[in-house]
């Protein structure tokens, strides 16, 4: 049964089904594109407020226009949605209330007014009111062909505006202060973004409803962000994510019995977001944990090498074997940690092992010497140029020594004139 429906869906032989699918895919990707800018502007929840605030506008448009003509409804929705954003800004500007309070306030009060109007309409018996409450929860399946035309127009309008005002939107999205100081008309770009957001919300609501439409704006760019830093690529990615989830939503609601479209769109797009959040290379959680692990291990091994070198200095030679207590004498470290550091160094062939203990290999000794040199150079630099007392420079050097590149190392040596001793009168080892 399900397989049959699936085959039927994928054949796209039903023209109504095809237009619904097209409509939903178009809506999802358009709101994802606009949402990218809302997201970068950190206005994600404003989208939620707009979504709730369009309800009274839609109801008023219906009461005045006495029809469900999507153009009337979009105009009505646009007016109250736009009003809500401005009210949020007004409240945060003129009172000490913070943005989250203002958003929640506007969102709930506008929605309350909408509910009052909606019940008024239902009680008053204006003909044709049934289906108006679909706006609350979205009714993608009820999208008709003429609706698709309207949404198609709005989508094209939205995408063209994004392309036309790309530069303004981009600059304000990342840094509105900079944009202002560069002489850009931030207020114009803001107005543009507000308008686009409201339009995107108004159209998105048709597919997924008031509560979920915020996700159509926020979640695709949130997912895309994990894959790229590049704005055009991010926009394209979120559009694709939006389109894919729109498609999956329509598919699920067609194939499974009694399934609403909206929630499936949201579940799909959030699935993509969670996947990106965990697995994306570079910014995903797994990758970052691995990176963190690698940095920690590098620090550990470098510290062990350095400690061994200094233990060698103490006794006057670096060639004989080092015992564990000898290495551990320099700093407090867990035995297992020290052991795992030594093992890693052994695997990387910086150390050798025999029955007497641990030995440096040639490359190990060179690396250890370099680390000690950097540490002491940095200490010298800090006392000489920054004027920090010699007994305070150790910790800082301990942190920075892992990050000094060979170029910096050379610069440091030249700048300090290749000093013989560090502030603690220890000799600085050069090759």
């Amino acid at each position, binding site marked *: 049964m399900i397989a049959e429906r699936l085959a039927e869906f994928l054949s796209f032989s039903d023209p109504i089904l095809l237009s619904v699918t097209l409509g939903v895919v178009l809506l999802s990707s358009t709101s994802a594109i606009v949402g990218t800018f809302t997201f970068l502007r950190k206005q994600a929840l404003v989208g939620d407020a707009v979504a709730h605030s369009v309800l009274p506008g839609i109801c008023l448009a219906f009461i005045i226009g006495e029809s469900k003509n999507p153009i009337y409804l979009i105009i009505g929705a646009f007016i109250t949605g736009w009003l809500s954003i401005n009210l949020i800004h007004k409240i945060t500007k003129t009172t000490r209330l913070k943005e989250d309070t203002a958003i929640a306030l506007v*969102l709930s009060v506008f929605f309350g007014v909408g509910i009052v109007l909606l019940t008024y309409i239902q009680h008053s018996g204006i003909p044709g009111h049934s289906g108006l409450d679909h706006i609350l929860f979205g009714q993608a399946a009820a999208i008709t062909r003429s609706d698709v035309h309207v949404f198609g127009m709005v989508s094209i309008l939205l995408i063209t505006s994004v392309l036309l005002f790309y530069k303004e939107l981009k600059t304000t999205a990342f840094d509105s202060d900079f944009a202002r100081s560069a002489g850009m008309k931030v207020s114009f770009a803001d107005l543009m973004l507000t308008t686009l957001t409201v339009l995107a919300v108004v159209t998105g609501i048709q597919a997924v409803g008031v509560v979920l439409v915020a996700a159509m704006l926020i979640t695709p760019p*949130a997912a895309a962000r994990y894959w790229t830093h590049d704005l055009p690529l991010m926009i394209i990615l979120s559009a694709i994510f939006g389109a894919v989830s729109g498609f999956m939503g329509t598919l699920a609601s067609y194939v499974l019995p009694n399934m609403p479209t909206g929630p499936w769109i949201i579940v799909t797009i959030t699935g993509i977001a969670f996947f990106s959040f965990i697995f994306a290379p570079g910014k995903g959680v797994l990758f970052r944990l691995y990176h963190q692990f690698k940095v920690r291990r590098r620090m550990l091994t470098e510290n062990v090498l350095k400690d061994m070198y200094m233990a060698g200095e103490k006794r006057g030679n670096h060639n004989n074997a080092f015992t564990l207590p000898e290495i551990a004498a320099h700093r407090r470290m867990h035995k297992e940690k020290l052991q795992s550091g030594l093992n890693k160094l052994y695997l990387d062939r910086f150390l050798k092992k025999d029955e007497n203990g641990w030995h440096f290999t040639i490359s190990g000794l060179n690396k250890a010497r370099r680390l000690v040199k950097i540490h002491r150079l940095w200490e010298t630099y800090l006392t000489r140029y920054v004027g920090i007392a010699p007994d305070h420079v150790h910790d800082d050097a301990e942190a920075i020594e892992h990050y000094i590149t060979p170029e910096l190392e050379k610069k440091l040596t030249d700048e300090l004139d290749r000093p013989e001793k560090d502030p603690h009168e220890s000799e600085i080892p050069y090759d």
Partner: protein
Amino acid sequence: MDAFFVILTGSLVAVTCGILGIFLMLRRMVMIGDAISHSVLPGIVIAFLISGSRDGLAMLIAAVITGLLTTFIIQFIHEKGKLQADASIGVTFTWLFAIGIILISVFADYVDLDQECVLYGEIAYVPIDLWILPSGIIMGPRSVYMLGTVLLIVVITILFFFKEFYMVTFDQDFAVSTGLSVTLWHYILMALISLTTVASFESVGAILVVAFLVAPPASAYLLSDDFKTIIILTVFIGIIVAISGYFLAVYINSSISGSMTVMAGIIFAIAWLLAFRRRNFQKSLKIIKF
């Protein structure tokens, strides 16, 4: 009598939400409250499937679990995933709400719930939905008991741990330095909000919960600087909203929770105007001084 119970229910929600809302507002976490009020939906559905009824302990436990889960996911994505706070909230609650609706659709034959009810409830049914003892004695509306219990829990918790809540709200660094766990108190606050949402969702719905969480505290905060005065004002405003909202609804023959929200908005607007005057008055005082 019906009017009395509706107003009583509204007031109970108003007072409970108002008190919690003050802390949320001052900690800049109102939108997390909003998120929880939506995201408890899947918890409610699952509890309903397990226990087979709308009331009782199962519902409250499920609510607390989903509420805390919401908070945890938001925190996790924000901290581990480095996603900005507003987006973490938006992604999480819409996802959970969507799952809730899907669950309702899948188990439509078993679950006597719908999403309209979750969003705006039906407070008018409160007086009909009675708690009747097995012996046949009618105890009065069920919601009133449920909400009364939650109010008691909230008030007792906050009074008992007032110092902790106060410190965590006003001076996190100091709280941390005295050894308080900010995270623990954060989660306790969120658990209380989840309890409140679920206890009130049937009668007033998520939207009125959010309105009561934010509007009375915001109005009170514009009118006073003193923490205790803000609490008293919040409670007072909440009750006024419940009463006037009810009569507005009767007058225009419309949704009661919607009308209460409208009244909350009107009272906020008045407080906003008064705050303007107050600020100008203080400014003129300063001018006179210098």
